[in-house]
């Protein structure tokens, strides 16, 4: 279980998170919603080790890991994707899965099912955005994460893409993974049956968990 306790974060003196408590249990799906600028992404960045909170603790299976760096969290199984897809424009996508041929062969079904197998030898700028998003997720999945955080995966996707993307998430994310989707489009969260928590003014709005 990954727990965030009493997180506070300031940016330029302005409070973004103001005492947030939440716990992520493996095997659950959680949607973090909230308007732009309510601290959703900051929460994700803290949970994955890319930012350190001013106050509060991050606890993984009982161990305090608040000051662990991101790479360490990633090795402990806490992985993420990015709001703006991050790829090296000079490398073909196969190289950017950062894995070996064996694992690619083993997961051929997933790559084919997700419709990305034809794009493996393309450069990122030759590939539509929904595919890039899937590849970012697959990059994380190939490393068997326990917690997977998606940062606004719907950004830039049309309604039909979103449908397809939801199916992809349902199909290929194992049941024992804790999937956390940071989003403000509720449709995707409903599609994957996520528990939705809403952030407002740096805190979770109490009692609004829609199941």
């Amino acid at each position, binding site marked *: 279980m990954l727990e965030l306790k009493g997180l506070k974060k300031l940016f330029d003196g302005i409070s973004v998170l103001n005492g947030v408590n939440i716990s992520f249990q493996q095997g659950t799906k959680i949607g973090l919603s909230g308007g732009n600028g309510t601290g959703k992404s900051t929460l994700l960045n803290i949970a*994955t*080790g*890319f930012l350190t909170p001013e106050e509060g603790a991050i606890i993984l299976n009982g161990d305090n890991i608040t000051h662990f*760096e*991101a*790479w*360490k969290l*990633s*090795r402990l199984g806490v*992985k*993420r994707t*990015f709001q703006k897809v*991050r790829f*090296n*424009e*000079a*490398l*073909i996508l196969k*190289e950017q899965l*950062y894995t*070996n041929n064996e694992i690619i062969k083993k997961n051929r079904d997933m790559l084919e099912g997700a419709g990305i197998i034809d794009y493996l*030898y393309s*450069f990122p700028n030759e590939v539509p955005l929904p595919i890039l998003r899937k590849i970012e997720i697959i*990059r*994380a999945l190939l*490393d068997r994460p326990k917690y997977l955080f998606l940062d606004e995966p719907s950004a830039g996707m049309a309604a039909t893409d979103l449908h397809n993307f939801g199916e992809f998430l349902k199909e290929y994310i194992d049941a024992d993974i804790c999937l956390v989707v940071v989003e403000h489009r509720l449709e995707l969260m409903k599609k994957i049956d996520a528990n939705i928590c809403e952030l407002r003014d740096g805190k979770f709005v109490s009692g609004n968990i829609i199941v």
Partner: protein
Amino acid sequence: MSLYLVTILTNMTLISFIAISAYLILIVGEVSFGQQAFFGIGAYVTATSTALLGLDLVIALFFAFIVSASFALVLSFLTVRLSGLYFAVASLCFAELLRLSLYKVEYTVETNSGTIGPNGPEGFQNIRWIFENNISPENFLIIALSSLLALILFLIFMESSKLFKNARLVGKDQIVAQSIGIKPFVYRVSFITLAGGVAGFGGGLFALFNTYIEPSMFGIMLGVHGLAYSIIGGLGYPLGPLLGVFIDIGLLESVRFLSEYRMILFGGLVAAILIIFPEGIISPRLVSRIKRNLVKKTNA
């Protein structure tokens, strides 16, 4: 082969070591203005090992590699928090400090062939290894060139390794690197160290070839040339730095009527190449394209 040609080729080979060491640091995303110092340390260590201690070539160069790599390791730890401009300037400071300390290193021995040993600003004279072992300039070129070739082959082989791929990712985007569990620190430290060692090895060969070294030879201009070679050559493939060396020394210096204006031409050329190819001539993207086409051909 004329002596002139042999000398030019040897010089090209020796400076290639600096270019490659700059290349290795560029791979992990940093710019070093200090590789010349590691070259210098390597030269002093080799001179000491052969002339004062009478050690074998292989052992002397091994020492040169180890000692300069250790200094580079120190640099990488000192600059752990720095990157970009800050790392570049810090590496320059570190290098100049090392070089200036050489002015203070004095330990000389009188022998029948003259004074040997580091002698402050006078430098280290009478490094007689090539004479003692009867190595002709051609043979020395073969030694230097084959070491360089071995290094290049090693790097080409390593290019497809996980180690190098991860290092390139660290250099390109530390955030993605961290998100897939790569610890950037490890790659930075090991590449900066390796680069120091490579420069030191080249410096060792330089000391033997030149038979005389002094601290002023290892000034910043040497390092900057190495850096410029690998940047204009491109970071896509280990042959990039060699291309840079060839463009400068092979084309500009050896064409005699140009050599007087070489620095004017070379400076402008580097600036122009950077405008046209900001990532160098053999850029990572070019290499990926070529690789992809090769894969397509073999599949077809």
